[in-house]
């Protein structure tokens, strides 16, 4: 059975697999990588450590890369819009309030203009 080498990549570096594991085919190697990723992730998460930033780089006996597997794919972690900070929320509220204030001012001006027009119209009708 051919050997496949499952190098573990993490933010701390690359842990080389010097032993290798026998697998029938690339598909078999992918299944084994997936199972190991689940198990290693569970252990990391139990220990309060992140797992989604790791992955396997799998090579064949000649050292040729065969496939990569990110643990985030196994865990179903998806990129997510970051939460807004309280400062950003305050800035957004202040901006909305300012826009409302400006609209009110514009409305007041428009209302005054309408009143002026009405008064002018009444004066013309009365004369």
């Amino acid at each position, binding site marked *: 059975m051919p050997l496949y080498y499952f190098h573990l990549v993490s933010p701390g570096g690359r*842990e080389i*697999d010097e*032993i*290798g*594991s*026998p697998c029938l085919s690339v598909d078999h190697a992918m299944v084994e*990588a997936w199972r190991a990723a689940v*198990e290693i992730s569970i252990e990391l998460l139990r220990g309060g450590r992140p797992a989604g930033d790791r992955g396997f780089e799998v090579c064949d006996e000649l050292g040729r890369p065969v496939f990569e597997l990110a643990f985030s794919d196994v865990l179903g972690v998806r990129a997510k819009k970051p939460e807004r900070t309280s400062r950003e929320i305050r800035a957004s509220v202040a901006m909305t309030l300012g826009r409302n204030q400006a609209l009110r001012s514009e409305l007041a001006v428009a209302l005054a203009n309408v009143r002026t027009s009405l008064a002018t119209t009444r004066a013309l009708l009365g004369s």
Partner: protein
Amino acid sequence: VTDTVLYALHGLGIGEAAALALRVVTGPPRQLRAGERLASEGDEPEGLHVVVNGMLKSCRNLDNGAAQTLALFTAGEMVGAQAIALGRKMSTLSAVPATSVATIPASRLKLVQEDYPQITDGLLRALARETAILQEWLVGMGRRTALSQVAHLLCEVTVRMRMAGRAHGDTCEFPLTQAEIADAAGLSTVHVNRVLQALRAEGLVTLSRSQLKIIDWNKLGHVADFDPLYLLPAANFGDGHAALLFPSGEPRGAGDRRDRQPVP
């Protein structure tokens, strides 16, 4: 052959006469190829099997193709008491490497038992030891890390080999492949591979060409949380077995378990 079978029978703690009587009715050893089945789940019990050379594994094969190894039996150990008690094999027995096995047929065992009733107590002790080993495996699968679990298995196999005189110092034959360790530990092959490399990188063991060498018993015992007392039959307590088992110092990883409390 004689030595190994008699060693196994003496391990039952049934006395010289009963051991010799069982030895007389033991069949000649038969050779099994690596991976060859000795018995299948559901079979009627053939008798008590003594591993003369090599290693047997007891395994449950699932419908989905997965296998779970339930027990290992090294040279000088017996298997079959459970099947005799229950009237059927509860798991499949097969050879790990090429293995030779001698069998005491169930019918003859029964006849000898009539003259030596202490054999029943001996079989009970053998079953209790199997249960104790199974308990340790269960704890490992349920609560230990993969590193600790595999370290525990390496400690256990070495001690069992040493008890049967099959180890040289801290080195012994270790015929299990990565996949077989994985089946015993309930882990993936790749995870076992990483754990073995970690143990090697820490300078605790070397494992090559089916030879296991424990480099640092104390550290390995600590990583494994290993306390070898569960491997000693009650009949052998206090006869200096511990000194025989650990020529380079007993592992102190387990400490005194009586003082331990669960952490809420």
